[in-house]
């Protein structure tokens, strides 16, 4: 087990390095630069000398390899540098928005789990009956409806009927729970629907599979009550893939908030990402991508570890 774990950790390093190289190159290939954008997007007459001076100040005139080495050596000591747009430390910019996005993601996860597990189980138990078909349609619709459109409809509904919109500025839940929840419950619902759809489908198919396994048949044959079969035998064994999907979707959600945060004007990671990409704020985008990728790889790693712990065959493959 230890060897497997160490192996997996070592494998993470080339992946992360690959992500770093890819994002670094992609950013430099994008047309347009932050200096032109900053001084020319609103008009004004800025001389080429000022633009050149600003590029020097941001280190954009250094050779590319130098820029990459600078960035990497900063990363080694946990220094992400400063935002090229605001001049504030990258980490401060991210930290001030992370809480909001994490909360929305967690709320969406809770919502999705609460919806998905009962619905998925129900659908599996009544496979191919009308309950199942209904739940399947509900779930597939969840995959189909764009969450930003759902968000737009929600706001439209609230505004037209109650002349009210969710609060505009974020307050942490421990400061003002009511304010906090009334702002974040809507985006959590909008993205949670899709999320619950994915999890419902996973729950349904794994439970169907588990119900066909030998030990379930044995339990049934022994005359164990159906409810007990489901609760004690089927559910427990079906939970692993479901938890996996929930975990992976959570990692994806952080990136997936990109569009929804626009609609609700949430000051989160997704909005920050779109803004920094459109500004070509290299240091910020690099840090954000590394953050999301690391998070995603870690979740994957934990899932694999969990599987390996439960299923010895995987360790020796």
């Amino acid at each position: 087990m230890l060897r497997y774990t160490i192996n997996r950790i070592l494998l993470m390093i080339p992946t992360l390095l690959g992500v770093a190289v890819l994002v670094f190159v992609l950013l430099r290939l994008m047309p347009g630069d932050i200096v032109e954008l900053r001084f020319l997007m609103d008009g004004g007459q800025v001389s080429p000398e000022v633009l050149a001076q600003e590029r020097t100040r941001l280190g954009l005139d250094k050779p590319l390899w130098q820029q990459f080495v600078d960035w990497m050596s900063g990363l080694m000591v946990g220094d992400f540098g400063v935002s090229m747009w605001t001049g504030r430390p990258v980490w401060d910019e991210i930290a001030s928005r992370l809480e909001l996005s994490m909360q929305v993601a967690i709320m969406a996860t809770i919502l999705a789990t609460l919806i998905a597990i009962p619905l998925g189980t129900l659908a599996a138990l009544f496979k191919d009956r009308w309950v199942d078909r209904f739940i399947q349609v509900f779930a597939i619709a969840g995959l189909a409806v764009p969450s930003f459109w759902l968000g737009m409809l929600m706001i439209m509904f609230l505004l037209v009927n109650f002349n009210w919109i969710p609060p505009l500025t974020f307050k942490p839940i421990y400061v003002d729970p009511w304010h906090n929840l009334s702002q974040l419950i809507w985006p959590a619902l909008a993205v949670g629907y899709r999320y619950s759809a994915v999890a419902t489908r996973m729950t349904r198919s794994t439970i169907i599979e588990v119900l066909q396994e030998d030990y379930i048949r044995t339990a049934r044959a022994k005359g164990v009550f159906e409810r007990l079969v489901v609760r004690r035998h089927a559910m427990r064994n079906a939970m692993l893939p479901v938890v996996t999907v929930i975990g992976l979707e959570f990692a994806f959600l952080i990136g997936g908030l990109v569009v929804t945060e626009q609609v609700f004007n949430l000051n989160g990671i997704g909005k920050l990402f779109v803004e920094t990409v459109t500004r070509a704020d290299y240091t910020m985008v690099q840090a954000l991508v590394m953050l999301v990728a690391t998070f995603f790889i870690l979740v994957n790693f934990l899932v694999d570890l969990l599987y390996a712990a439960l299923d010895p065959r995987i360790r020796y493959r």
Partner: protein
Amino acid sequence: MMRKFGLPVVLVAAFALLPATADAQTPKKGGELRFAVSAEPPDYDCHAATSFAFVHPVRPHYNTLLKFDPANYPKVVGDLAQSWEQSKDGLTYTFKLKQNVKFHDGSPFSSADVKATYERIRNPQNGARSIRKAAYADIASIETPDASTVVFKLKAKNASMLTNFASPWDCIYSAAKLKEDQKFPERNVMGTGPFKFVEHAAGSHWVGERFADYHVKDRPYLDRYRAIFITNTAARVNALQAGEVLSEFRGHSPADRDKLVSALGNKIEVHESPWICSLVVTFNTEKKPFDDARVRRALSLAIDRYQGAEALSKIALVRHVGGVLRPGYELAASPAELLKYPGFGKDINAARAEAKKLLAEAGVKDLSFKFLNRNVPMPYTPVGVFLIDQWRQIGVTAEHDQPETKAYIANLRGGNYEVGLDFNCDAVDDPNLQLAKYISADRSPINYGRYNDRKLDELYDAQKGELDPAKRKQILRQFGQHALTEAYTFPTIWWHRIIVNWKQIKGWHMSPSHYLNQDLQDVWLDQ
């Protein structure tokens, strides 16, 4: 359908910008003004800023030497200057400064601060940035004979000098702070303005609070103001409709105005004015066939500006037909004078026939090109769609290319385009600023047409040094005629600014620029 929501309930006098009569009420003190801003300032330095998103949250912390009279644009009044005089030859400006002005840290304000500020703009040192050096290039020296007097000496006559001193960008900084660190204002806010800095939550909001020692008696009225950053247009208008914010000071589209009026009725006040911004078509004159004036002029002639202005004004924030200067500005061409410019006549059929003839003469058949536009929905997209439709009517095919802003700017500046939709937007009507778009590329950093035309340069310099407004106007007409005949760059339709305020907001004045009248000194809340 439009008619149902069409007529705004309250339409505060628009074109003439009448002196407001609403101030008859006695102003009330206190309250917090919440307003939306659609973007966010990157840092806090006025001298390196170009965006309204900077002016709206930051300007209330500062004063400038002069400013535009909020109720009587373009009249210039003192801000930190008590009075001023201009020598007969137009080469010396002497300012008497106000007494008892204090900075937010309690230190007194004096002429040294003015000198330090303008030296920083003119000639930034130690890594400081200044992007408006050109406006003060004519200054020879700045002297401070005593603590309340500043004398500017010029090298050359400049008809726009007073306008320059009223620029909203020239925040007066503390000389002491600048001496410690020229970059101090980038990360710190410390001025003499009506409001002290409280906080800036990145991506979220900006707060200022009343400066108790402000030099104007009994001002400001407000206790605080809170600028909330909302990038999404729909979210911004929703916030305004729900009363979460009381205004947004850049401008709304007609659709937003109609929506707000129909939802809120007489709880709000609509202010409208022509806007000192225009979308201009510009040609890459290095690419064939756009090196040919006939082709360029044909594409200008094909546009029915009058019908377009009327139709687009219902869906986009453009409305006025004008030449190289904002229609309605005292030095701009009158509607009658405008008719004489090519492409500004009322008979569109004749103009289109002429356009086709010009294209035939130039030997251009089935002209088709990529039309570079900015990926900003309002008003770039509607105007772009409109232009493509207009050109289609003389048999010209334009393919819409709308990259996001930074790629758009890179393509325009790099000459990586054929025909593009550029914009011209500045804080004031001043011809020195406005016409810089049209003069030769080797003189102007914002000419993306890559041409040099010495006649335009000559006329530009002549009007700049002409202190007599009537004569200056004459030269400007010649400039317009030549620029629009050559049609390297030509205006399409000028913008129209629409501001929707909740009625509680009093003492705020409309102006043709979203960069002006935002110090919030005289604004109060009736609640």
